[in-house]
């Protein structure tokens, strides 16, 4: 039976390098896919992924599965590292009209495969989620960028996240609507 991600992290906390490599094999290619949508410098992208796994290695003894699943913990570590790298390196911001394209010229097949969950969102919701999550735009920046009222941006983002949660079969509380 395949070890769970949580079991791998427990072994990482015991400084077991094979567990780190297994986690890397499971997730690094998805993190690279995320990185390609967040930055144009692929060397920097690989560096960020390596940093994320090194941070996970160093923090593995403090991992608490009651607070987050292992995959969410790892993706969140990598996502924040990449956002910081974007901010620190003044990574070129994608023009609005390119928001739906990965940073490196992708082939058509990839563009089609890329959006399963986001395809459940309306065009505007999809645009906002991508600009916020992959490009790091704040609510107020999105309002300026899109020319929409701030309140509308907030409502649409909340709605888009709620739809994503429903798509993945997660319980949605009333307060999040």
């Amino acid at each position, binding site marked *: 039976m395949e070890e769970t991600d949580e079991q791998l992290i427990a072994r990482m906390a015991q400084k077991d390098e094979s567990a780190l490599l297994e986690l890397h094999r499971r997730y690094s290619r998805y993190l690279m896919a995320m990185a390609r949508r967040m930055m144009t410098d692929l060397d920097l992208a690989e560096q960020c992924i390596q940093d994320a796994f090194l941070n996970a290695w160093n923090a593995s003894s403090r991992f608490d599965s009651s607070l987050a*699943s292992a995959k969410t913990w790892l993706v969140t570590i990598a996502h924040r590292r990449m956002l910081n790298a974007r901010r620190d390196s003044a990574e070129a911001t994608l023009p609005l009209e390119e928001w739906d394209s990965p940073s490196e010229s992708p082939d058509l097949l990839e563009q089609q495969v890329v959006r399963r969950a986001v395809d459940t969102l309306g065009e505007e919701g999809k645009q906002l989620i991508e600009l916020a999550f992959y490009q790091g735009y704040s609510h107020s920046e999105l309002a300026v960028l899109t020319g929409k009222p701030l309140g509308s941006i907030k409502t649409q983002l909340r709605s888009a996240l709620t739809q*994503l949660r429903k798509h*993945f079969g997660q319980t949605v509380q009333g307060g999040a609507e």
Partner: protein
Amino acid sequence: MTLDADHLTAYALGTLSPEQQAEVEKALERDPEAQREVRAMQDALTDMVLELEPVALRPDAEQSLLARVREQTSSVQAHTSVLEVSRPQVQSQQQHRWVLGAALAGIAAVIALAVVIPNLPAVQEQRIQSEFREYSSRPGAVAQPLLDARGESAGRLVRLATGEVFVLLDKAPVNARVYQAWRIEKGQNPVSLGVYSNRNFLTSRAVPNGETFAISLEPPGGSDQPSSAPIAVAQL
């Protein structure tokens, strides 16, 4: 801070400033319901990422990661040794005191971890964490962990683009001692970067990238050379 749905959404998306993020994290500690909401949103965003078409990394990515892990471990061990052997042979008595001091400091650290170190007030803690995030968010700043001789976390540091290093240790100095920061150039004696009485400080001098950065516990006023084993080391 009162959490609302927009705060939680922005937090999950990662779009808050470091200061705002710190405030939300503090508020989340007191709000289990908000924690569940954030977790659900982060889970959904993670699942969205895991639907992306996987993209291969360089073939040597695994080996490169392992090399960094091993370099990190050996760096801590090696530079502990560097500190221990860096003083001239003629100072053998001082070397003995160094070893003795290291042992005492180790015992003191254990006692400190268990008993002595006071809890900082929440407001003070929040200010310190915000300070770290502010330095981390500066252009060109690089954050990395500070590790003790066993490879366990002893704190974090941020090397600024200008070379100064902001340090946030997990614990404050104890037993009327102070922290002293050192830069260690390969084959050279440690060079002091200043003496500090708090667990968070900005070095007064720059440290070139690639050099080793270490912190030891010293008597008030500091020492010409480290008088105890380093409590934290990092390769910048």
